[in-house]
């Protein structure tokens, strides 16, 4: 925690240093023209920061941030021209309008994914452009106040604007930094990297995204409002135009996506570059400035696809990293915390039913993937679900944790109905889950992955981190490997990490979807005791598995699904002898022979 505070202080110091250096340069420059450009750099940096909060962190790419920029600009302008409200109040008002617009736009648009979201966002400013033209605001200029200009944010000295712009930029940087380093930003990052995993890990994607949209829209609106004050003329084309949205995107992509320094770097380089090219070449070879600017962007994108910040950071990290071949903590073999003895023979007693399903069905068109399944899992049990491929096992899990809605039936967890809940809500009630194919957040470390899972069970970020460390210790991941990037893990490490993520918020019930799939015999022997230990510590487990010999050793109870129907249920030894089960696995033809052998 002390390290964390130090990291914060370091960032604060960096921001302060940047702000002071920038202002010092601005005050040293005598030329009002260069000062104006330096003000514009900050305006576009704020716009880029706004874009970054939504699109950089959560990965929902917006091509339409001009909508908020324009609303901010027009709020300031109309408030000034029609009602005589000073921009000192107009800009905060614009931020409010921007945030409201963010909510109104977010509600319908967040239903869309990927490209569709990006394209829908593109449409909003274009629509607003026409609305403002239709309303007769083609060209509105902010009147010059000859008396008391300061009260109307009108200064003869560009440097005053620069100070205001810098305050705005610093505020947005500090907010962004706190977002980045908190549950807010980590959740957005998790959503960006793997939405289903984030939801299953208890992250309320809709809520965080909406917060991001509101914050993002507010920043863009502030930039727009201040832009109106600088430019003094507002037209729909200048504030709602596609170029305005593009500018936000370009400065952030160029400088670095998903980090608040990105838009600052991008804007500081690109805005003066574009303007200098324009000033130097515009009247000599008209249009050439656009070509040079475009080529510069293309080159940077090719060389540093994630932006300059990341390229430089990767370089520095690579230099700091130990030379190849040196022993690394990460390479240490994984061993369970404590060796566990097999006790399959012991008959165990279980508590009251924890999970109860009654006639649960889910159909895809005519295909009944889960067909009137009724089962009951007592507390403390390892409950195995087996069945041939396509039997509906994973679908049943998806219905259980809220990815899919059941068409009918009731599901109760500790007596409480959980049908109809969203994945993060199911998770919040104490249901963890892993996936058939591991869903990790590849660009986060193992610890960060697990922290994401811990948020739902923790009030503070520090508590989440403590829970994550505890969960990692439970699955035997300690030392240097917790700081490895998830993208570089082996299958077994990934399985353990996912297990730790599910365990982090201390769930009552764990749904394990083929956790053992793809593992070799030795690796299997490493994981089975961990699952067993987790169960002994009080977590009820429902596990889907193909690896029959592992299941027989692990599960207290079997149920068998075939074509979505529950065809058998009972003690493992009994179930494997059940003719219906053998038929389901091997077909009728083989049933008799198999029957003989089992007998």
């Amino acid at each position, binding site marked *: 925690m002390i390290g964390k505070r130090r990291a914060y202080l370091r960032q604060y110091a960096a921001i302060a240093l940047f702000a002071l250096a920038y202002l010092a340069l601005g005050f040293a420059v005598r030329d009002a023209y260069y000062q104006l450009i330096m003000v514009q750099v900050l305006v576009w940096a704020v716009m880029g920061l706004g874009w970054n909060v939504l699109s950089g962190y959560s990965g929902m790419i917006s091509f339409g941030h001009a909508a908020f920029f324009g609303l901010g600009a027009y709020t300031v302008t109309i408030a000034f021209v029609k009602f005589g409200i000073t921009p000192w109040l107009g800009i905060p008002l614009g931020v409010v309008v921007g945030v409201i617009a963010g909510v109104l736009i977010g509600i319908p648009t967040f239903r869309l994914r990927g490209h569709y979201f990006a394209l829908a966002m593109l449409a909003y400013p274009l629509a607003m452009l026409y609305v403002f033209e239709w309303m*007769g605001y083609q060209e509105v200029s902010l009147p*010059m106040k000859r008396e008391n200009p300061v009260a109307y944010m009108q200064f003869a000295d560009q440097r005053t604007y620069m100070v205001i712009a810098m305050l705005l930029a610093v505020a947005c940087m500090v907010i962004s930094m706190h977002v980045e380093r908190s549950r807010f930003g980590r959740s957005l990052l998790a959503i960006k990297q793997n939405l289903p995993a984030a939801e299953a890990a208890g992250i309320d994607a809709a809520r965080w995204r909406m917060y991001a949209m509101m914050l993002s829209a507010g920043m863009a609106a502030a930039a727009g409002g201040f832009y109106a004050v600088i430019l003094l003329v507002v037209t729909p084309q200048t504030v709602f135009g596609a*170029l305005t949205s593009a500018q936000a995107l370009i400065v952030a992509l160029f400088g670095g996506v998903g980090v608040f320094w990105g838009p600052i770097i991008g804007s500081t380089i690109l805005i003066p570059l574009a303007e200098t090219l*324009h000033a130097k070449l515009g009247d000599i070879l008209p249009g050439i400035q656009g070509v040079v600017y475009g080529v510069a962007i293309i080159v940077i994108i090719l060389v540093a696809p994630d932006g300059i910040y990341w390229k430089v950071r990767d370089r520095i990290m690579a230099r700091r990293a130990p030379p190849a071949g040196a022993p690394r903590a990460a390479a240490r073999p994984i061993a369970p915390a404590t060796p566990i003895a097999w006790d399959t023979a012991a008959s165990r007693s279980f508590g009251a039913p924890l999970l109860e399903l009654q006639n649960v069905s889910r159909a895809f068109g005519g295909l009944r993937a889960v067909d009137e399944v009724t089962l009951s899992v007592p507390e403390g049990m390892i409950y195995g679900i087996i069945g041939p491929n396509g039997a509906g096992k994973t679908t049943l899990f998806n219905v259980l944790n809220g990815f899919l809605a059941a068409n009918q039936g009731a599901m109760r967890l500790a007596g409480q109905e959980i049908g109809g809940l969203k994945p993060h809500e199911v998770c919040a009630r104490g249901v963890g889950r892993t996936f058939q194919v591991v869903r990790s957040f590849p660009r986060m470390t193992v610890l960060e992955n697990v922290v994401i899972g811990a948020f739902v069970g923790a009030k503070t970020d520090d508590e989440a981190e403590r829970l994550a460390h505890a969960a990692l210790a439970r699955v035997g991941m300690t030392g240097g490997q917790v700081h490895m990037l998830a993208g570089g893990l082996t299958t077994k490490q990934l399985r353990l990490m996912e297990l730790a993520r599910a365990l982090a918020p201390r769930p009552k019930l764990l749904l394990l979807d083929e956790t053992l799939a793809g593992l070799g015999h030795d690796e299997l022997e490493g994981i089975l005791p961990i699952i067993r230990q987790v169960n002994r510590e009080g977590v009820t487990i429902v596990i889907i598995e193909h690896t029959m010999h592992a299941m027989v050793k692990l599960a207290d109870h079997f149920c068998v699904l075939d074509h979505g129907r529950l065809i058998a249920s009972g003690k493992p030894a009994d179930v494997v002898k059940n003719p219906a089960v053998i038929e389901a696995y091997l077909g009728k033809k083989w049933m008799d022979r198999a029957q003989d052998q089992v007998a």
Partner: protein
Amino acid sequence: MTTRRTIIKQGALGAATLATSTAMPWRMLRAQAKPVKIAVIAPLSGPWARQGTLIKWGAETAANEINAGGGIKAMGGAKIELVLIDAGDSAEKAKNAAQRLIAQEPDVVAGMGAWLSTFTLAITEVTERAQLPWITLSYADSITDRGFKYVFQSSMPAGKQSVETLPTVLNLAKAATGKLPQSVGVIGDNTASPTAFLKPMREGGLQKAGLKVLFDETYTPPLSDATPLIQKVRSGRPEFLLWVSTTISDLKLGLEKMNEFRLAKGVVPVISNGAHLGMPEVLKNLPADLIEGLMYSVANHQVKGQDRINDAYGKHSGEPWITQDGLAGYGHTWIFKEALEKAGVADRVKLNEEIHKLDLTSGPAADSFPGGVKFDAAGRRTNAIVCIVQWQNGKPLTVYPTDRAMAAPKWPKTS
């Protein structure tokens, strides 16, 4: 070697400089034969580059003329030096251009530009604060509505153009046919300029002129098919059609369709608005026989008495005829020259006063602007007249104001 005498001399000079500079800027002292800098901020790149280039050519033509004729006589024959700056394609760039001009060209005494009203509004926010006299051809009323003291508008503002066009056209019709038209059809696209132009007409202007509005259609450019619009013309048969379009291609579709329906070539006269309709390149899109008879109103166009201007401009630019944009560049430069002759010094404030005092009825400046050069306190040209231009035999010819007209208007006789 420094002698006592030179010290006294230098001291006296210094005192004189000090004394003068408190009263007037120091620039005065160096005015002798030093070139006078005039800024031209115009879009030289981006979508409006063509218009900006025409302004530039006009200004260059005038500057060459003035310099060849001995420069500014009141200033010891000082030559005019144009400072060309690209306004680019956005208000932000235009404003930057103006700020750059003010910061890096302190010797500039006046300027013109930058075609698009939005640009002009942004630029004049900077130039006004720097007390730099600025003349523009931009139409927007707001340019001279802000109480600025250093801004001049040589065009009739858009609001007035709109009000003036209708009676002017009706009078032309009456002069040609002997009676006033009784009915009209209106088509306009929904962009800024046509909407603003048609607004006063739609809000009672047409009815007040005694016209029956048979239909009033608005569309979003570009058109993919003009048939539904022209069907209205065919069934309604207005005595004339008011069609205001920002794109030539839409007008082309419409005129072709009218031709197909045998409504073109003056059967139903078409009245429009905008300088773009008189550009030489219109003929690249529209065959001359199709555009024949089209009438449009515009702030300025080549009129009688401009042969010399037109020739000089044509020689410099290679353009077949001079339009509003070239005339603006040319005329504005001459206005500055006339005012500089009066001021006798390269001083912004003094020059501004002299521009306000101008009342020119002859000479190149007055020739460039029908109605002469005289500005009111707001900076609007008091006697500005809207020009009506008609395409006749493959050329856009001014048919109004009548005394400066290049040709008589042709209005088809309606039964």
